[in-house]
């Protein structure tokens, strides 16, 4: 019964979306306020109905209703509750439903908080947003309906892929989708502005919070995914340049570019048509990402619904929205003349270079991801493009970005003098170079990656320090002035420092990892680096829906016990799949990472040990970047511009 209600709500939401796509658009064109006003309640209704449908599906998973085909395929009655819930989106159909749920949520938020937008712009934004929703509702209802029943319900389900049964991965998809779909708001604003034929500072201000929110979610989503890969896949890599990872990374790069170019639109009324183009492309890459994951066109560890029919459908959606938006863009871009005038050396120019590097870096990732396909289709060569290519072709752009960032961010608007801007930074530049040089001298003569990354990280973090010191001016009141800096400035500082921390972390892990592979006998210690490890015990345990072989490893330094690690090897009988759970001791400067394998004939166990310097910094930096975004988002000027001061507040009941 609940399932049928959910199915019905989904169809109803589809109908509402069609109305919301058509009526406000005509209303905005004819200036009929009644027709425009349809958008607002429709957006709310669409969200409520989709939430109902999603809730119904989740109910099916929570109660293990195996008469639902989707639940039978992806769940099991013995699965822990957390994974029953996360199982709702751990499959193609459910994740698409989550996708539209978030899409309609953003639409509803734009309706609720968009009180200050001009009525025509708001009507058009909501209509475009709804057009995207129509396409995806149709996709779900016609090719991937989650509410299909089975005639004879089986006794139990087939379980969720064990790799996905993990807290990190339970929340990885929702965050990623919040990011992907959040970019649809930027897209809707861009298309609405093109229809409207006008882009001004206010537009820049309105579109920025949405982009910022999307970027924050993408950052968190990607970080969670890479963290999961690090501790779950058993050899301690954090990024694999897998097509699906690239699919999430490309929108992230473009969203980062868009964030920065929207600042130029807002403050200086320049870069308008480029910003519009970026907004269109950023969402375009989100759609391409969806296409890559769902079509099975590119082989990937994530490929999870290899169905050509679905692929073609998404390709059509992609073609329609990108084609339509880009045609509109070529027709209208000419009318968006920039106003602001600035010198060749200025904050504006620095932001142009930022955009250039991010966009070209994104292009490199795109070409690398699609190349195997292109080479096979046009050149009859079956080849692979793997991490070595991306490391070589992508990294230089990030290095360049890191080099110019501190200089660009202290430059004044309009006109700057390069040497004047660099003057206050010269000490930290030398200091950062010295730090990089020191690490080069201390390492055992290997790659340049480590020293370079450490130099860039120090340069970025200390550059932020210099910038903050500069902002406080001179004299006695500096501390007070520092605390009174706008939140957006704190956001900028935190996010930029976070980038530095992440770069240093990546360099540390890549350049200075030590590893050791051996057959360990019980209670016979071995040394890795400055640590002594001992396998003291191996036990067989039962989890709720898996069998586990758990090793106890003592980690000691100079005879003193540092930590006890518990690497596990799990086997999920229903899915017939083994997984590894690494035992990790993480501290500020290094991770010790231990994985246990099979028992050998002589009674010992295979054990792999890694010492990974600075590894935790990778995710610490990501957290800082996301936190910086949150600071910026809470800045007063966005609330003013987004109209929160005027928006009807929902009364909060007293506790």
């Amino acid at each position, binding site marked *: 019964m609940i399932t049928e209600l959910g199915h019905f709500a989904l169809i109803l939401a589809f109908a509402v979306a069609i109305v919301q796509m058509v009526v406000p658009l005509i209303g905005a064109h004819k200036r009929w306020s009644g027709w425009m006003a349809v958008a607002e309640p429709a957006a709310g209704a669409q969200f409520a109905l989709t939430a109902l449908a999603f809730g119904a599906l989740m109910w099916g998973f929570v109660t293990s209703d195996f008469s639902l085909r989707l639940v039978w395929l992806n769940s099991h009655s013995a699965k822990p509750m957390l994974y029953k819930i996360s199982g709702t989106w751990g499959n193609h159909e459910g994740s698409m439903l989550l996708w539209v749920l978030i899409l309609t949520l953003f639409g509803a938020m734009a309706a609720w908080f968009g009180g200050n937008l001009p009525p025509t712009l708001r009507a058009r934004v909501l209509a475009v947003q709804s057009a995207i929703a129509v396409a995806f509702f149709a996709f779900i209802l016609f090719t991937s309906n989650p509410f299909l029943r089975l005639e004879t319900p089986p006794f139990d389900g087939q379980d969720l892929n064990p790799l996905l049964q993990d807290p990190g991965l339970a929340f990885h998809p929702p965050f990623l989708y919040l990011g992907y779909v959040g970019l649809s708001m930027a897209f809707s604003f861009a298309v609405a502005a093109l229809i409207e034929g006008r882009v001004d500072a206010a537009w820049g201000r309105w579109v920025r919070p949405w982009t910022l929110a999307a970027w924050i979610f993408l950052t968190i989503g990607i970080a969670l995914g890479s963290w999961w890969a690090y501790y779950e896949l058993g050899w301690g890599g954090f990024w694999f340049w897998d097509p699906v990872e690239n699919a999430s990374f490309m929108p992230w790069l473009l969203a980062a570019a868009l964030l920065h170019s929207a600042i130029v639109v807002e403050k200086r009324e*320049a870069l308008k048509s480029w910003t519009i183009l970026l907004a269109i492309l950023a969402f375009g890459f989100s759609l391409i990402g969806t296409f890559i994951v769902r079509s099975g066109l590119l082989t990937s560890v994530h490929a999870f619904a290899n169905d050509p029919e679905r692929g073609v459908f998404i390709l059509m959606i992609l073609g329609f929205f990108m084609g339509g938006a880009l045609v509109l863009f070529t027709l209208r871009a000419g009318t968006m003349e920039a106003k602001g005038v600035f010198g060749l050396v200025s904050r504006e120019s620095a932001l142009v270079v930022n955009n250039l590097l991010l966009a070209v870096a994104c292009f490199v990732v795109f070409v690398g991801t699609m190349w195997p396909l292109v080479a096979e289709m046009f050149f009859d060569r079956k080849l692979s493009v793997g991490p070595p*290519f991306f490391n070589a072709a992508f990294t230089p752009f990030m290095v360049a970005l890191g080099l110019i960032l501190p200089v660009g961010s202290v430059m004044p608007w309009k006109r700057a003098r390069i040497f004047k801007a660099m003057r206050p930074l010269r000490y930290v530049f030398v200091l950062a170079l010295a730090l990089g040089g020191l690490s080069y001298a201390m390492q055992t003569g290997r790659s340049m990656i480590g020293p370079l990354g450490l130099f860039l990280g120090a340069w970025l973090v200390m550059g932020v320090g210099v910038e903050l010191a500069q902002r406080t001016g001179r004299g006695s009141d500096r501390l007070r002035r520092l605390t009174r800096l706008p939140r957006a400035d704190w956001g900028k500082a935190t996010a930029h420092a976070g980038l530095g921390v992440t770069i240093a972390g990546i360099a540390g892990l890549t350049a200075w990892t030590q590893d050791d592979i051996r057959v360990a006998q019980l209670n016979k210690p071995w040394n890795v680096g400055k640590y002594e490890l001992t396998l003291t015990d191996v036990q067989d345990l039962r989890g709720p829906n898996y069998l586990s072989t758990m090793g106890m490893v003592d980690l000691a330094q100079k005879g003193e016990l540092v930590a006890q690690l518990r690497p596990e090897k799990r086997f999920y009988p229903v899915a017939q799949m083994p997984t590894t759970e690494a035992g990790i001791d993480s501290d500020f400067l290094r991770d010790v990472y231990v994985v246990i394998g099979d028992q050998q004939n002589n009674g010992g166990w295979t054990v792999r040990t890694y010492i990974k310097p600075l590894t935790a910094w990778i995710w610490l930096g990501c957290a800082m970047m996301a936190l910086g975004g949150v600071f910026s988002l809470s800045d007063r000027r966005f609330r003013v511009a987004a109209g929160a001061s005027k928006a009807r507040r929902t009364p909060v009941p007293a506790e």
Partner: protein
Amino acid sequence: MKPLVLFMMLFAAPLWAVQPDEILDDPVLEQRARDLSKGLRCLVCQNESIDESEATLARDLRLLLRERLVAGDSDEQAVDFIVARYGEFVLLNPPVTGANWLLWGAGPLMLLLAGGLGMSYLRRRSVAQTGGEVPLTQDEQTRLNEILRR
């Protein structure tokens, strides 16, 4: 999901990336083998190198690679030996030959192009220009002022 699960079942016995019995006694040779195997793709896996992979085929390739190195092959010879048997697909780092120039050149070329466009834009911006836009209406101007004042 299903094909993936079925696929995993084929390799259900928990195998390993590099195993202790594969490691060569000569640490220099072993390091060379590790470095080379990071650039070779496990053919039955999805986007994993043979150094990381747990599949049986990857183990075979790792052993083959080590055999060649022990037999005195140079790095290049050993890799060529494997490419000759398994095709170009096995290389994770696409060689700069033929059409692959496009792949490797894409980034630098795009940077040049975009750099040129950006530079010409910046030059135009540094010379004063006006007009072309729809000006704000009276109402909008008052509204904007109101917003900015707040």
